[in-house]
């Protein structure tokens, strides 16, 4: 017994509780008691066996896990009911079989049991025991020294065995029970086997049977043949004599198989083949094809050592490291120590932007110098150097901010433009909504919300005359004609035409005869709601308006008066924000007409084109350009502004600037596109007014932030060059009152001077 134990231990096999199937492999020798829940006490049975059999104890899966044991134990318990009965059955059966004829093959009797799982009765056959007596065809006789129960082939079916590679079992038997993987020795066992067993080198592991099997002689022969590149099948003879079936004496075919006459191609040489051949022949003759052309010989060896290497530069020597300076000393002089500001600055700068990667520090003695805290980083950096990798990954883009600024000429080279406020004219207590500069550039009229219109000199700022009207003054505008001199004041539902004082006689009489002609022109056929009332020329003075145009009642305050360049037509936009009414008045015919029957949106502004019979109408969001002569819409400009506040057209007529309450200023090239050529957002509040200088390449914009901005705007004659817009100057000096800043700007003709009207009641003149 002790010897058995010892042997077992030598084989390093753990014997444990068997599966019922394995246990039931000893039906004869063990009693029924065996099937009780004994925990793997096999010694008794082993002892009952003879020792020789114990030597060859089959390799059972070495499962040492207690968990699995418990599991199996539970399984066993589960099956114990049926299993014990089976065994009992078997006992009876076997006794029957034993008693009956051995040769007689009968199926074992099935037994009907109630299934635990389904609750249905089922037939259960006893397990087939592959013992010596049984007729199992799978009984392997080749290995007789193994116990017969271990020779039971696992009938897991033709399944890929790798499915169970990392599982303890290799499949399931017909009863759905796990077929456990037989125990296999480890590498040491294998080695011992190869030492001990002389046949082990011709043994291969059979996955199906999960065991080592010696190769048969046939299989060894196949291996040998494959190694020698012979045909693996030993029975195949590649050199069999041919068997003549159709040739030879007496086997000729005499009769033709078809009655078709023999085709001509069988005996006529092919024309096309001849052509192909002749083509090649001709090519050879002409030398286009050279037969046996010698191949271009490439040098077999290259004389790399004999070549002159003077053209190749020697690799440059590695740069020498900078020598340490005083600052790197552990005890630098005081002047090398950073000050507080320098230290702060050093800490604030990016690591890669620092001039030095350390701060000089002072220690009294070398032994006080602490360990190098950058050691790891330094090592890592050196290793990066070895990999030829950059030490620092630069994520910051090196963009010079100056390069992003567009190249613009300096404002100093674009003089003259307004630089300073030369004088200001106060309107006491009222916002100055509107100003206008006379065409000769000498006089300014300004109208405020208190109904006062003042006439003053541009250069001196001295008011020479003032007029008082009822209600607010919506707009004032000088007539652009040079031969007459008057201006229009727009108040509630009325347009007043006023002649300034101190005119030369010729101009005065011309103006009077224009505004109050002796013979009135014929009235138009259709009565107009606009009435023209004028005083007689002789009785007219400059104190009162010589001509008054009564706009239709309840039309509101005209917010804009704009003259045509020739001074015969003027257009007014009146009405509140809701709807705008556009009127075009003609002085020579004393006639007013509304050019639009229906207007989409509320009209904010109108403008005459300086050279062509075009008419710009700005609604809240769009600027439409009409041809007045042909009475059609030319184009619609989309500035992308939510609410247009101001608009002016360049004196050339090809460019338009539009200002909006949402702080944007759009420059339109009318030849180019319906979209703005340039959008400028320089003001911080809503734009109120924009104006082009009539002669200088300047324009100005004023805003509610109290500032006026002057731009240089050079327009080129050729269509290829884009206009040049340069911001020149921000003029500040107007106060912001009630959120309103500079309400209107106007240029002096012929001088680079600007007149601006502010909500603070001041009108300022800005000189160059």
């Amino acid at each position: 017994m002790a010897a058995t134990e010892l042997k077992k231990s030598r084989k390093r096999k753990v014997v444990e509780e068997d599966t019922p199937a394995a246990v039931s492999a000893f039906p004869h020798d063990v009693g029924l008691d065996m099937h009780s829940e004994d925990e793997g006490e096999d010694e008794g049975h082993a002892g009952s066996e003879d020792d020789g059999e114990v030597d060859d104890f089959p390799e059972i899966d070495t499962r040492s896990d207690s968990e699995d044991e418990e599991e199996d134990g539970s399984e066993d318990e589960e099956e114990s009911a049926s299993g014990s009965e089976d065994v009992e059955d078997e006992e009876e059966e076997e006794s029957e079989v034993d008693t009956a004829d051995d040769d007689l093959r009968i199926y074992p009797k099935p037994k009907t049991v109630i299934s635990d799982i389904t609750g249905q009765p089922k037939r259960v056959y006893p397990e087939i025991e592959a013992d010596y007596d049984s007729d199992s065809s799978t009984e392997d006789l080749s290995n007789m020294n193994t116990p017969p129960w271990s020779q039971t082939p696992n009938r897991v079916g033709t399944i890929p065995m790798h499915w169970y590679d990392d599982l303890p079992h290799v499949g399931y038997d017909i009863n759905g029970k796990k077929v456990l993987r037989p125990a296999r020795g480890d590498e040491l066992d294998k080695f011992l086997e190869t030492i001990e067993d002389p046949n082990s080198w011709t043994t291969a592991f059979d996955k199906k049977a999960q065991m080592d099997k010696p190769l048969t002689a046939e299989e060894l022969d196949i291996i040998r043949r494959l190694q020698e590149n012979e045909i693996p099948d030993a029975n195949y003879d590649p050199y069999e004599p041919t068997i003549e079936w159709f040739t030879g004496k007496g086997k000729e075919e005499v009769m033709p198989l078809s009655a078709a006459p023999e085709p001509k191609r069988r005996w006529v040489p092919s024309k096309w083949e001849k052509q192909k051949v002749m083509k090649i022949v001709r090519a050879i003759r002409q030398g286009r094809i050279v037969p046996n052309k010698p191949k271009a010989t490439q040098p077999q060896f290259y004389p790399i050592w004999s070549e002159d290497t003077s053209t190749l530069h020697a690799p440059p020597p590695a740069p020498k490291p900078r020598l340490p300076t005083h600052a790197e000393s552990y005890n630098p002089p005081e002047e090398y120590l950073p000050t507080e500001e320098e230290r702060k600055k050093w800490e604030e700068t990016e690591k890669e932007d620092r001039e030095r990667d350390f701060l000089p520090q002072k220690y009294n003695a070398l032994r006080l110098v602490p360990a190098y805290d950058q050691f790891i980083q330094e090592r890592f950096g050196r290793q990066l150097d070895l990999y030829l990798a950059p030490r620092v990954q630069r994520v910051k883009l090196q963009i010079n901010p100056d390069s992003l600024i567009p190249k613009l000429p300096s404002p100093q080279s674009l003089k003259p433009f307004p630089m300073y406020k030369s004088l200001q004219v106060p309107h006491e207590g009222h916002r100055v909504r509107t100003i206008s500069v006379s065409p000769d550039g000498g006089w300014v009229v300004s109208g405020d919300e208190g109904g006062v219109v003042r006439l003053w000199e541009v250069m001196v700022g001295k008011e020479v005359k003032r007029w008082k009207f009822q209600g607010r003054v919506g707009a004032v505008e000088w007539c652009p004609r040079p031969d007459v001199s008057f201006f229009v004041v727009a108040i509630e539902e009325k347009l007043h035409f006023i002649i300034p004082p101190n005119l030369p006689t010729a101009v005065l009489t011309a103006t009077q005869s224009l505004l109050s002609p002796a013979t009135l022109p014929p009235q138009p056929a259709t009565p107009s709601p606009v009435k023209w009332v004028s005083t007689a020329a002789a009785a007219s003075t400059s104190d009162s308006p010589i001509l008054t145009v009564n706009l239709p009642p309840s039309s509101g305050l005209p917010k804009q008066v704009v003259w045509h360049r020739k001074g015969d037509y003027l257009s007014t936009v009146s009405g509140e924000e809701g709807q705008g009414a556009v009127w075009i008045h003609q002085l020579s015919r004393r006639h007013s007409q509304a050019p639009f029957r229906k207007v989409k949106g509320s009209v904010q502004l109108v403008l005459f084109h300086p050279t062509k019979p075009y008419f710009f109408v700005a609604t809240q969001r769009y600027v439409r350009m009409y041809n007045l002569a042909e009475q059609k819409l030319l184009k619609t400009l989309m500035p992308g502004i939510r609410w247009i506040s101001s608009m002016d057209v360049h004196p050339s007529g090809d460019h338009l600037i539009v200002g909006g309450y949402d702080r944007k200023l759009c420059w339109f090239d009318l030849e180019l596109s319906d979209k703005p050529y340039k959008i400028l957002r320089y003001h911080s509040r809503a734009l109120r007014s924009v104006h082009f200088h009539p002669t200088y390449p300047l324009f100005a914009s004023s805003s509610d932030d109290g500032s006026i901005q002057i731009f240089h705007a050079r327009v080129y004659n050729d269509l290829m060059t884009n206009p040049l817009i340069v911001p020149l100057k921000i003029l500040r000096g107007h106060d912001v009152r009630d959120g309103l800043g500079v309400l209107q700007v106007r240029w002096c003709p012929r001088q680079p001077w600007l007149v601006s009207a502010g909500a603070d009641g001041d009108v300022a003149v800005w000189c160059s």
Partner: protein
Amino acid sequence: MASTSGSETTHPVVFSTQTPYPLPSQRFMIPTSWRRYQLSQLVNKALSLPKPVPFDFLVRGEILRTTLAEWCAEKGIGEEETLEIEYFESVMPPQKMSTIPHEDWVSSVSCQLSGYFLTASYDGHIRVFDYSQKLLHTASTHSAPIASLCLVPTPSTPSTHLIATASHDLTARLMSLTLSSDDTDAMRTETLASLHLHTAPVASVQANATGTHLLTASWDTLIGFWDTSIPGADEVPAEDGERKKRRRVEEDAPRARRKAPLAVLKSHTARVSKAVFAAGAGAQAYSCGIDSTVRVWDVENGVCTDTITASAKPFLDLAITPLGTSALAASTDRTVSQYDLRASSTSAVTPSTATLNHPAMPSCIALPPASSSGTGIVTSAHEHQLLTGAYDGIVRLWDLRSVKSAVASFKTFEEKSKMEKKILSVDWASGVVCVGGEGGVEVWRAGEGDRAFLS
């Protein structure tokens, strides 16, 4: 003197002067830390003057405003070089004499008539004041603002003077002013002639030194050249409308003769702001306009002989230095530029020889009267001086030898309100500066002040 220097560094200096206070011409070793004050004390002590006279010092043509050391460092002058320093009596700080309030803006003042101030106002009136600020006479001469006024020097009786005015009503007028020192009722003005040429407001009227001819400059780019003789009859037919009006206005007064110009000078392309005669009785005249040109005219022939073109400098006022060598012109770019009249203008843009920078727009220039002061001494300091009035209400006294900053300045029309009142006209005669502008008229004393008053 060198022994006094001690540890201080000294500089060799030679003094010279044109004043009646000469120092012996010898080398002085002056400490370089000295300023004007120490130098002035040195001169006073060296001459042992009974009453201390402050002096200003010119080093190589520049007024010394810093210490000598700083000046030498700026100019890069070595310690060994001998400096030649010229000194002259310094300008006393101007003193305010009186204020003469006006209802309207004063566009032009004149104190050429000794003992009286003549003012022309925007309400179209000419007023005469004496030195005690008493309003002696008011004459409504124009229905429109008067832009300019000048006294025509006449060799006539001392009580009757000739005045020329230019107005926005497109005419200039010649008037006689009769003064009587005791009786204000005896003072009267009479319009002798109205000058009809211009079709735009007349900006200025100026008479020559002998009082024989007048120049008017107008916004209509024309300059009129007139003589001062009063024609016997109208030379220009009156327009219809005007005659009716004028008859109503001047029913009682004898009607002024309508006078035509001797010549019309046409060359300017924009408004002419000022036209003046050259000093002396020559037939040359100068004009400036906002077309950024100063033109030299031969008035006898009515041709423009020379043009000084500046770039983007619309000129507002013009003055010719007494020697007639240079022109001073005030422009809207806040500078007063000096142009050398002797140099021929060959280039397109004539560079200015000196530029006086102002913080506001300079509107008027006044020069000291040439040798008209009673003492007869025209000092060297005097002929380099000028006064400018600007829109910020400050009158500045400049010395052309040192144009970096003004020698002296004084603020006029000081009031509580923050708005600065503009100066429109400055006149300077015999130590009296008369300033006219938005706030009326102010009289200041400047230059060789008390001597003029004493004489």
